[in-house]
Structures are given as C-alpha cells and as structure tokens.
C-alpha cells in the first residue's frame, strides 16, 4: 500500500491516478493511523519552503513518518518541494527541514548557472543517473521529466546524489540516503517516464 502524505499542499490525487494506472493500491495519508499499513511513502509538495514545512509540521504526521522511515525501513520519496523538505535547511525559508538527507536548498543564480538562464527552471529536461539505483532503472531512452522550481538540492554528502540535470550547470535532481529518496522533478506529471519511476519506487 502506497501512502501519499496529504498535508494540504501537493498533488495527492495525481499520484493516486498514476498508481491506479500501474494497478497498485494507494491511499491518502492524513493521520498517523493511516500510515499503519503503508509500505511506501510519498511526500509531495508545492509552493514555498516555509509554507510547506509549516503545513507539514501542523499535520502532526512527522513522528509517525520518522518512525516508519527510521525504524521500519519504509521507503520514502519526496517530490519537488517534498524533496527539498528532506534537506537540513533552505535558502528560501527560515524553518528547518526534516534532515533526512543532509543538504542545503540553494537558489539558481544567473552568475552560477550561465547567462540568460531563465529562472524558475520550467519545462522538460533530461535526468542523467550518476549512480546505479532501482529508482531510475529503465530510464535510459525516455529520461525527460518536467521541472518547475527556483531552488535546487545541494547534498552535503556527494554520495547522496543519484542523478544530475543540466541547467546552465549540472545540479542534483535526484538524491537518496538509505530508504529515503528525493526527486526535484514531477514524476506524477511526466507521462511514461514518470510512471516508470513511480513503479520503480513501489518495487523498492
């Protein structure tokens, strides 16, 4: 049972529709009790870092999610801002992140990333795996995903990087530590490549 965390921000239904297409059961997780039979957790997120953290903190789900991830080895996938929430902190906000994948969230800047780089990074771009991982299996041909973000994940440990995307300069578009994964792009809105990734995640 795939549990999609519903703390008021993020496209819960789009993930459920994707898993329905894949023939896999999923549910909306609003309370700690909802997590009991969940084997995989998806943490979606849209919007600004602090408003996402605020809402997630207010949901009261953190102790149960932390327990599932740390004590029961339940795989977790953070998506977009949900990925950024896995870090320690973000340049976009004041609130601390969840610290599940050590790192900082940085702003794309023109100086760093070449001239005339449009920001936010918006549109389809290629995801190049930098590590062998089940999450990104079968994506050699069709590896374009939809991105929509102004900030990106800078892992403290380079070993946590699973894939890179080039936008002016390369950045870490997928990270992982233990059973915790994060992707900056939107697999739930990335057609077949997205389905492949979501299927891979459900098989971890």
């Amino acid at each position, binding site marked *: 049972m795939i549990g999609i965390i519903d703390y008021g921000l993020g496209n819960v239904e789009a993930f459920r529709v994707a898993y329905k297409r894949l023939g896999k059961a999923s549910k909306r997780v609003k309370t700690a009790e909802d997590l009991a039979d969940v084997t995989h957790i998806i943490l979606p997120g849209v919007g*600004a870092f602090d408003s996402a953290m605020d809402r997630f903190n207010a949901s009261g789900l953190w102790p149960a999610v932390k327990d599932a991830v740390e004590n029961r080895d339940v795989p977790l996938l953070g998506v977009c801002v949900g990925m950024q929430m896995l870090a320690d902190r973000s340049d976009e906000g004041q609130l601390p992140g969840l610290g599940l994948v050590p790192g900082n969230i940085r702003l794309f800047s023109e100086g760093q990333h070449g001239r005339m780089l*449009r*920001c936010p990074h918006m549109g*389809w771009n290629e995801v190049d795996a930098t590590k062998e991982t089940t999450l990104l299996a079968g994506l050699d041909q069709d590896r374009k995903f939809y991105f929509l973000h102004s900030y990106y994940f800078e892992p403290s440990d380079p070993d946590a990087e699973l894939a890179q995307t*080039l936008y002016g300069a390369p950045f870490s578009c997928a990270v992982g530590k233990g059973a915790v994964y994060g992707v900056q792009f939107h697999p739930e*809105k*990335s057609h077949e490549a997205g389905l492949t990734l979501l299927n891979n995640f459900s098989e971890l």
Partner: protein
Amino acid sequence: MSYPRIIPCLLLGDDGLVKTEGFSKGRYIGDPMNTVRIFNEKKVDELVLLDINATRNGTEPNFKLIEKIATECRMPLSYGGGIKTYAAAERIISMGVEKVALSSAAIETPELVQEISSSLGRQSTVVVLDYKKNWQGRRVAYTHGGTRKVSGSVLDHVDNAVAHGAGEVVLYSIANDGAMKGYDLAFAEEISARVTTPLTFVGGAGSLDDVRALIDRCGNVGAGVGSMFVYKSALKGVLINYPNPDEKERVLAEYARKYLSGTRS
C-alpha cells in the same frame, strides 16, 4: 538543457471549451475532460486552461471542474480566470494545479501576485497579459477579456509582474488570437531578450513552422497554441491534435543545434 514548451492553450466558456478569434465570444470545441484525455495520450508538454468568462461575469473559478481536470492531467497544468483572492489561488494549487495565472487581478492588485508568489512559490505564479497595438502602434495591455484598456505599455506591465514575483509571464496577442497567421515575432523577440523570467507567447500559431519560427528567434520560451491544436485545418473542423515526437524534433531542430549540443562538457 531545458526544452522550449509547446503548450495547448484551452479556453473555458460557459458550457465547455471554446475557441475565440480576436477574443470573440467563442465557438464550442468540446468537453474539457475528453480534450484533456486526448492531450494525455498525445503526451503534451503542459496545458494552459483559461476561463474566459469568470472575470467578465464576476464569478469565482469553477473549482469542481478544475479539480477534475487537475486529477486527469498527466502533464503540468496552469489555470487562470477569476482568481481574485489568495484563498482562491491556494485552493487551486492544493487541488494539484501546478500554476495559477492572474490577468486582470495582476494589473488591478499587483500585491496579490506578491502574496501568491511568496506563499505558493514563484514557480507557481503566472501573470497573463492580453495586449494589442493602439493607433500609434504601441502595444498596450487589456483586462476583462480584452474589453478594458489599461494605461502603460505591455513592457512596463511585464516588468511589474516580474518585480511582484511572477515566475512566468504569458503574453497573449488579442489581434492574433485565432488568426493562425504566425506569432507577434518582433515583439516576442524583443521581450525575450530583455526578460529572464520564463515567457509564453499565445496568439497566431497556424502551423508548426510558426512555432518553430518563435523558438528559433526567442530560444527557450513557451509556445502557446490554440486554434491549431483544436482544428483539423484552416477549414476549422474540430480535431484535437498535437505534434508527434518526430514533428516535435523538427520544430526544435535549430534550438537543439544552438543550445543542446556541446553544452555537456
């Protein structure tokens, strides 16, 4: 590097999707859910959905329909029309719409753009500017479905939108709407050279060559397409369509040559 986006731009009228010409009342095209399902199959880059009556009629967005469409969409969705409050924008984003677009409200209450941008994120905040040339040939902005002229040049309004936190600006040529005779290229080129925020141009696409011309001249921008993706030909029988991967590759050939090769060092 990122790819230019080729975006069906759907207009929501009172009873379904419509297609306008020069912001006219609009001809019925079909049911929005069906159309979205067809665009899913065609793997479109993203979708823009604009309710062209909400602001004019003073009604709220059709939240129920927006939620149904957002759930159905396998690609990112921008919604615009009738968003006048932060609460409405937040509600739409929480339904799984990736971006909310403000038009009249962005000009009348720019602080609303700022509020949405700072809470929901710049990447989810879009400003749509409808414009046409005045008698002096200057491009001026209009609100309320092209019925109210506002002072200041379109360029000033673009700068203002970006200054208030817009993460994308959509420039919609009223004169080219439904004309299928090509984009307002000179203007698109001028504006894309001076603004580093993502831009999408709507109005005028009549062939894939038009889309290609826009991308060749402006680089990484969004090409919004109305008539061409809902009509079979210039005779205007309704047929939902979108370039296949080969056609798309041809449209993006020059862009790929300029920006994609040799960037990986």
